């Protein structure tokens, strides 16, 4: 079970690193609407991720 949590944590870190890299390189090319939607999706992603872990009992 602990190994499972470590793997999940590692996967989440990789995903965040990937999004961070894309943001660092390509955010300057995004349109204003694209930036707004990206911001909303980022907020949504962290909110639902928080709810998911809350549901798991963390």
């Amino acid at each position, binding site marked *: 079970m602990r190994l499972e949590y470590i793997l999940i944590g590692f996967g989440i870190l990789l995903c965040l690193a990937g*999004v961070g890299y894309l943001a660092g390189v390509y955010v300057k090319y995004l349109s204003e609407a694209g930036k707004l939607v*990206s911001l909303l999706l980022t907020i949504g992603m962290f909110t639902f*991720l928080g709810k998911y872990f809350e549901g798991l009992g963390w």
Partner: protein
Amino acid sequence: MAIKRINLYLGLTILCFVGLIAIFIVDGYMGVYDALHVPMGEREEKIEADQWQQWSQWERAEIGWGERAFFRYEVDNRQFSTYSANVAVSVWRSREKVRDLLSQSVSIAPFDKEEVEWVVDTTELVPTGVSLEGRPVEYTIVINRGEIERKVIFTIFGYAKVPSPPR
């Protein structure tokens, strides 16, 4: 019921993540982007997609009088189709065209880049030179690519003439 809800949250998280990636690819990566390499004395600076507005108002390229300045304009076609346009470059001052520098058709294959270059000879623009006492002379380079217009201001400054020591 609780497990269903947890899975729903996980699904929504993944959906947001996939949406983010899709926006970065479709809106951020795909398209036609241009950049300009301008001289800054001995250095060269790159004006990128998000800096055109800033460069048309606040920033200046710097060229010493008597020098020939080399500009490189790069068009990056990140589309699945070939991009064709005419690139026309001219120098302006006080809303009047001073000189045409370049007019060239470009045809860029999908996911490829092309560069066009031109030279600004400062002695042709200001034949009499620029004194250090006076203000540097400013000109605007206007780049027309299809319907898109880019403006970059450059400054021609003078050289200090060091007097020879008395004998």
